[in-house]
């Protein structure tokens, strides 16, 4: 008890007053603003697919884009909540990004097995493949670093999950940008070179998270 009392005296004598971490709403808005600006810049660089107006008349394409946006929003929200030890007392929201990602995977798998829509554009044989994964990965580097830097301001008790959310948010932005830029609707291509790498990057993010988010 004597040791604990000494520790308490030491801790309470700490002269530095903490600057309270701002609310999750503030961080979500701020982080989203940065990510949207980055996404717009990336989209300007990559350009939009020429048949985007046609694709937007296809319900499954709209749902896919909607799920990518939802993935971005939920993973940003989960990243921010993971900064607080108690997830700002909304721990169930930490599962949302995984649920959205799972639904997205189901949608892509479903589209592999249904007949092709005439409006879908299939790639020519021997087209690009790994370049998409590399593009998503490279594009996710800066946003991931930003989110990790933000997460380190907090005190996450879910370092693995927090790391995965950070990378998932960044890669979902990359996936969204690329989906709006690339004239390729092959679901096998999307599954293999967009979403599977996203999953692998997310796992890598979880692995990195346990080291970077120690406190």
């Amino acid at each position, binding site marked *: 008890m004597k040791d604990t009392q000494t520790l308490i005296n030491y*801790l*309470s004598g700490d002269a530095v007053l*903490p600057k309270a971490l701002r*609310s999750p709403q503030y961080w979500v808005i701020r982080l989203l603003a940065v990510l949207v600006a980055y996404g717009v810049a990336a989209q300007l660089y990559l350009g939009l697919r020429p048949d985007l107006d046609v694709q937007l008349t296809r319900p499954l394409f709209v749902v896919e884009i909607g799920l990518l946006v939802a993935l971005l929003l939920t993973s940003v929200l989960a990243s921010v909540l993971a*900064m607080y030890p*108690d997830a700002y007392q909304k721990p169930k929201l930490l599962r949302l990004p995984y649920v959205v990602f799972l639904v997205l995977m189901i949608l892509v798998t479903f589209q592999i097995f249904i007949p092709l829509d005439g409006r879908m554009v299939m790639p020519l044989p021997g087209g690009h493949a790994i370049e998409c994964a590399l593009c998503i990965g490279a594009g996710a580097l800066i946003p991931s670093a930003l989110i990790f830097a933000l997460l380190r301001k907090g*005190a996450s008790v879910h370092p693995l999950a927090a790391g995965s959310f950070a990378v998932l948010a960044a890669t979902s932005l990359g996936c969204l940008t690329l989906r709006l830029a690339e004239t390729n609707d092959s679901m096998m291509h999307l599954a293999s070179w967009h979403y599977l790498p996203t999953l692998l990057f997310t796992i890598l993010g979880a692995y990195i998270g346990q080291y970077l988010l120690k*406190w």
Partner: protein
Amino acid sequence: MLDKYNESTALFRSGLEGNREDYARFLTAITPLLKRVVGRRLAACDVEDVTQEILISIHKARHTYDGLRPLMPWLTSIAKFRMSDHLRKYYAQMQHQTVDIHELEEILPHVTQDGDSDEYIEELLDGVPENHKRILTLMHVQGYTAKEVGVQMKMKESAVKVAAHRAMKKIREKFEK
């Protein structure tokens, strides 16, 4: 209970505003609670260390509490995290602890050749009923738990514990004579 909780919250908030005495009082007030929580999950010898680790973590993470939400879930999240962290480190350490067989070279022949200890156990168990003898051997020589012995001997765990206790008492009495 609610008063105590409200008081702790008020002390913590005051501490966050710079009142050191209130902060010290808050840490002192939660220490017994933390010790109870830690004591339920970890070995008694680790309680003090882990409680101190939790106190340090609370101090480090105090900027993440804004006073607008209940304090206890915030505290317990940190406590659980530190306990899990401690257990993770402990099991990782245990995994890497190995005994070199060569280090046992000098001991092993001695153990296998020396029958004194076995004879001594037999002498101790002399006069103890056969099933009690078996329970004691299984539990204290072969290292089975009361539950496992119960399964083997088709007895309830509580009955095994009672039998073991009685047998030990008998041995103790024999010793005292």
